[in-house]
């Protein structure tokens, strides 16, 4: 069983004889310090040791002095190291064995710091290569030396702990922190020893690792092996396949995001070699919530709007370039045809081909830029979508299965997805702020049944996004044609209100109640007495679903609906109309302002929504419940179950 450790985590060690395998993807220097019970390197035993070195130094194994009792380190910098450790051979006072890694100073082509190098990985194995624990040191930046792991003795048993402490000041700072006397001199010695060894070394490790350090896939391929460990990755196996990774190494990267994660560590330019334009332009890996805001919800909301704007603008750039290419081509052709001398003959052919080539070349260029931007936005969408809270997520998102009745209404709700023809796969959530500033109109012109399904899905979503009792729903269905679709809303007790009476009587009764409410709230607000509404006044937001408007409506009721559409949102009364505009044509142009004031949604994809920046026509798709899914019933059950806790 391999344990992949996180920073600070420890893991018991089964035996005393161990091997520590370091793979860093770039040449590093490995060193080991031994510490006493307090972790200090300079043990008391040091003073009366036989040979010369100053106290403390004999508990430090480094390339200049590679051997200590029970441990030996390599003499040179390499991308892969194998340190043999025998804990049984450690002197009695030793309680800690620290494994240090440092980047060799002053090498051309080598990363300037660990932030620019692939994340080093350490594996603790038994001598025959069975993995015990692994640790990838991540989150490094400007550090050039680090304390990677420590083995420590606790109550007579040895354990390994993932430390991953980096030092901006490099080896001197690290050694000083360890309590090594004359840390600066010792660091100098280590450096000298590495340089000496490098010049002597035959299989110059630099040559074999340099391509790995600069190629964008540095983080993916198994690190070039200076001293190939038997039976594990061979140097020729450059394919980033998981099986070729050293034993004990668990690859947590998303298989489809490999290129992006691999490019990131290679991106920071080294001072000596200017980076290839490709690696300099490598976009950052998108992260969910990468936007301003006080809460994760707000950040995600802002990020989605940022993606929306970026998609609108990047497509605008593409379309304008394409239009320009076409108009230039047309102009050039017109000019050719207008002049009788250039109209025919081989010269005209050539000119025509040239114009065509110019147009195609420009469109290709624009397409390449668009593809680059779309790939980035798609990658962002792939990380953002799974991170969305229920209010922002589609019904197919698993987050709905973990739905809990919220304490607070969310910032916004998702009413559907928006796409552009250039990127039909890239769906931007259409988020609308709560409380709704304008009513919603589901157009039933094409498909009445589907329109009511959309309306109910929206109603359930709004209900689920409000705390218990925060939203009261009224449904007007004078003809009763939507009774089956509305039924789940009334079953199970998620909705407190009984269905209104059918026909005009029911319509008038509900409308009168809501109109009175809006009047009352407005009166109270204007009078500066919003806190002295009559006792028993229901302060919840109200949502009125109207099916088949204006069926069953007389002139008075139509006027009331118009009043609610205009004045309702400010007083907490919101409209959700399911209507076909043609049905209401008998009222003449009187209702035109009503339609315009509502946000039109369609049960089938339709390109009628414009963005606020460029004004593209976006294809709207409603947020529909996947066929056969029980998610709506489940959410309504949760809502109903939560009611008694609030005394409702």
């Amino acid at each position, binding site marked *: 069983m391999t344990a992949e450790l996180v920073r600070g985590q420890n893991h018991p060690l089964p035996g005393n004889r161990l091997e520590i395998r370091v793979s860093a993807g770039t040449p590093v220097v490995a060193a080991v310090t031994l510490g006493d019970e307090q972790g200090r390197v300079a043990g008391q035993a040091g003073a009366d040791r036989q040979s010369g070195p100053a106290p403390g130094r004999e508990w430090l194994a480094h390339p200049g002095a590679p051997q200590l009792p029970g441990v030996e380190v390599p003499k040179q910098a390499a991308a892969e190291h194998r340190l043999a450790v025998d804990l049984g051979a450690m002197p009695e006072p030793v309680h800690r064995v620290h494994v240090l890694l440092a980047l060799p100073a002053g090498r051309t082509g080598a990363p300037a710091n660990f932030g620019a190098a692939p994340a080093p990985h350490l594996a603790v194995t038994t001598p025959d290569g069975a993995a015990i624990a692994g640790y990838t040191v991540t989150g490094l930046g400007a550090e050039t030396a680090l304390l990677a792991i420590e083995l420590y003795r606790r109550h007579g048993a040895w354990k390994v702990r993932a430390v991953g402490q980096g030092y901006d000041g490099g080896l001197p700072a690290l050694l000083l922190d360890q309590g090594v006397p004359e840390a600066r001199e010792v660091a100098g010695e280590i450096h000298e020893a590495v340089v000496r060894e490098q010049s002597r070394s035959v299989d110059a490790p630099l040559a074999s690792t340099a391509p790995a350090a600069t190629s964008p896939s540095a983080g993916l391929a198994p690190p070039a092996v200076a001293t190939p460990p038997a039976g594990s990755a061979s140097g020729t196996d450059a394919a980033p396949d998981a099986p070729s990774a050293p034993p004990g190494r668990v690859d947590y990267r998303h298989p489809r995001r490999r290129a992006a994660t691999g490019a990131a560590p290679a991106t920071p330019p080294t001072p000596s070699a*200017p980076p290839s334009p490709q690696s*300099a*332009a490598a976009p950052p890996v998108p992260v969910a919530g990468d936007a301003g805001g006080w809460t994760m919800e707000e950040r995600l909301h802002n990020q989605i709007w940022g993606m929306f*704007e*970026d998609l609108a*603008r*990047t497509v*605008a*750039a*593409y379309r*304008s*370039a394409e239009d*320009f*290419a076409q108009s*230039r081509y047309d102009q050039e052709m017109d000019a050719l045809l207008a002049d009788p001398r250039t109209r025919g003959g081989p010269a005209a052919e050539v000119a025509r081909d040239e114009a065509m080539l110019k147009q195609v070349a*420009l469109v290709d*260029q*624009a397409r390449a*830029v668009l593809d680059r931007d779309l790939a980035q936005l798609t990658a962002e969408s792939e990380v953002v979508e799974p991170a969305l809270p229920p209010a922002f997520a589609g019904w197919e998102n698993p987050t709905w299965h973990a739905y809990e009745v919220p304490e607070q209404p969310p910032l916004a709700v998702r009413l559907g997805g928006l796409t552009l023809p250039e990127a039909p796969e890239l769906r931007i959530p259409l988020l609308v702020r709560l409380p709704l500033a304008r009513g919603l109109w589901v157009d039933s012109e094409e498909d009445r049944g589907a329109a009511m399904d959309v309306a109910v899905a929206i109603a359930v979503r709004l209900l689920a996004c409000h705390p218990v009792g925060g939203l009261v729903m009224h449904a007007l269905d004078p003809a009763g044609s939507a009774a089956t679709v509305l039924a789940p809303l009334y079953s199970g007790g998620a909705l407190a209100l009984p269905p209104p009476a059918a026909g005009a009587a029911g319509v008038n009764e509900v409308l009168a109640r809501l109109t009175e409410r809006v009047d009352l709230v407005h009166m109270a607000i204007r009078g500066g007495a919003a806190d002295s509404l009559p006792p028993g006044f229901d302060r919840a937001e109200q949502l009125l679903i109207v099916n088949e408007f204006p069926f069953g409506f007389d002139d008075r009721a139509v006027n009331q609906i118009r009043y609610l559409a205009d004045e309702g949102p400010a007083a907490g009364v919101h409209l959700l109309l399911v209507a076909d505009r043609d049905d209401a044509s008998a009222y003449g142009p009187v209702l035109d302002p009503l339609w315009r004031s509502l946000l039109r949604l369609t049960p089938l994809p339709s390109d009628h929504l414009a963005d606020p*920046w*460029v004004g593209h026509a976006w294809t709207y798709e409603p947020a529909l419940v996947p066929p056969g899914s029980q998610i709506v019933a489940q959410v309504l059950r949760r809502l109903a179950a939560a009611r008694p806790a609030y005394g409702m």
Partner: protein
Amino acid sequence: MTVNMTKGQKISLSKADGGTLTAVRMGLGWQAAPRRGLFGSRTREIDLDASAVLFADNQPVDVVFFRHLTSDDGSVRHTGDNLVGGAGQGGDDESIIVDLQRVPVHVDQIVFTVNSFTGQTFAEVQNAFCRLVDETNGQELARYTLTGGGPYTAQIMAKVQRGTGGWSMTAIGTPANGRTFQDLIPAILPAL
């Protein structure tokens, strides 16, 4: 290091280390010249406006000014209208940020202009300058001073243009007359 540009001078926008600029900012700053006379302490407010016109093959395709703060493609952004100037006391009063990587492929020149919206001539403006800043690190690349301006109400300041080796900037400095950029298009065309 900043270059004090003179009319017609051209500088390359590739960086010393071989990289190319990714974002530049055109900053405009000015102060109203104090008037002498009976109410000499009262300075008249002067509203200068910075605009950027995007050209493709010598045809204007988009414009960024105080009524259209971001180009449709999002590559050129105006940070907002300043009606009085001098607020920054030497800092930029209006800025236009150009994300050179996002500029659509067909746009090959971006011309920056300054107009006096309130109609005063540049003779009444003092400490006016226009400068080009590397937006990624705030370093000033080029500065062009307007002071000593004559009896005209607009100036075509500079252009950045796309070449084979990346973007370059040319100081134009042609005086013109006009209230907004629309009046300037005829004056811009010869400079392309």
